[in-house]
């Protein structure tokens, strides 16, 4: 399990770097487009490229942001409960998180399949849209693995 956790942490960190690179690409492309527009040669399809990069920025940040506990929770009630109940709620919420990300990830793959079959592309550049759906689905599955690792670590701690 230890190796699995290390691998997941590494994958999450790697994805986070990709998200960071995508964010910087958005800045570069947008600013270049503004400058080139002054010369009447703006970058065609900036709107779509930025949208696609935005999906990478957010999607690829999900696993690391959950590892960093960056998300908003309301724990004032559970904190006041006895330790055993607290642990029970942690296990339950991790399980619900896995279920939700599993559902979203699976259906993003279904959506990707449909987009692939229909050959739907972006309006201006006609770039295929399905890779974005698959990428986001993949991010959700990695997030499931992050939550599974947390769940198993929590279970181990409960046994100890």
């Amino acid at each position: 399990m230890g190796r699995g956790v290390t691998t997941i942490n590494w994958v999450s960190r790697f994805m986070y770097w990709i998200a960071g690179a995508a964010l910087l690409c958005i800045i570069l492309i947008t600013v270049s487009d503004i400058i080139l527009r002054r010369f009447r040669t703006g970058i065609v399809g900036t709107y779509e490229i930025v949208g696609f990069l935005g999906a990478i920025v957010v999607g690829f940040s999900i696993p690391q942001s959950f590892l960093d506990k960056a998300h908003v929770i309301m724990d004032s009630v559970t904190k006041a409960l006895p330790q055993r109940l607290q642990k029970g709620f942690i296990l339950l919420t991790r399980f619900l998180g896995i279920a939700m990300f599993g559902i979203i990830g699976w259906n993003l793959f279904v959506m990707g399949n449909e987009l692939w079959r229909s050959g739907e592309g972006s309006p201006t550049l006609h770039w295929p849209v399905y890779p974005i759906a698959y990428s986001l689905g993949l991010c959700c599955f990695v997030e499931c693995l992050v939550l599974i690792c947390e769940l198993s670590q929590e279970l181990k701690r409960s046994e100890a």
Partner: protein
Amino acid sequence: MSITIIGILTIVLLFVLFLMGLEIGISMALAGFIGFAAIVNVKAAFSLVANDVFTVFSSYGFTVIPLFVLMGQLGASAGIARNLYNSAYKFIGHIPGGLAIGTVMAGTAFKAICGSTTATTATFATIAVPEMDRYGYDKRLSCGIVATVGTLGAILPPSVVLIIYGILTETSIGRLFLAGIIPGLLVAFSFAITLFIWCKINPKLGPKGEKSTWRERFASLPPVIWVIIIFVIVVGGIMEGFFTPTEAGSVGTLAVLILVAGKKDINLKGFIKSVMDSLRIACMVFILLAGATILGHFFAVTRTPYTVAEWLTTLPVNRNVIMIIIIVVYLIGGSFIEDLAFLILATPIFLPIAVKLGYDPIWFGIIVCVTCMIGIIIPPIALNVFLVSGITKTPIGIVYKGTFPYLVGMSICLLILLFFPQISLWLPGLLMK
């Protein structure tokens, strides 16, 4: 089962999930998914969650969020806030409570490039509190003002809260930015007045600092001028239609990066940290937005917002009373759930009511943001108070006590803005016809 009962059960489920400690964004997505499946069918609910996540994450308009967050993080990491604080300190540090009033001035100026309340609070907790400690300022006063001044990030442009409100309600972000300027300055002024009165009553709370020469004062001004230039480029660019908000975010971020890199105020490590911190905050916001979109689609099927709007607008009371009820709901909701999360959850429900009552959506956005500002520092969930307490190692109770005097000023400002909408709407009306 009728749609109304499913609607009520889903709302109950949502709050149970919140109380269990599940992430707010995931709670909204899960409750929305289950409710939608119960009303329409499971297959449609599967399709809904995938579509909503895909649409929110790949939306061009939403990319503005990480960009403005990065702009603020860069400014915070590179010491721009410290320079602004030094400048304000040199001008008014020598009067009683001057360091604290300087914090208000520097915080207000820093908001011109930083849209994040937490980044501002954390930055000033690191810079201003030790300085005020050095001059023997009372901890209530020093920690209280730092926790409070960070709230200005919710209203002064380029506020991330205003951007999210604009995207959620499809109102012009440029107009919202302009509408936030005068109310933001009004609230900042109320902080300065509160400090002045507090130190006048008890001068021991905020002793005088050293007096600077006029030469020192003018020498400290260039960082302020740079911030004003970047602010004018960003907000002026949106206002004049040169940029979309996303483009303005990119231009502003690049301008701040060039400024801080040119002055060697940031190294590669600091830059990477800023990018990573921005991703973390942006991801948190996007998960909230995706969850709220799924829940919003469920609400649309149940027609809950319209039913609530119908009911509230037919109440035999003045429309201002209804607006005060809405504000109280925001305050109570924001006290128990994080304020931004509650804004994302509640705005799609309350905006139709405000519009139906004849209020301007831009004005409503400002009212919601000022309400959020109050919510950020009132118990039990007061993010800024926790942050200041953690950074300065001061007991939470002392920080809370320090924030209470400013709540009076903020509440008065809220009432002024409520009864005089032209204060918010005058500037966008004048500059964006």
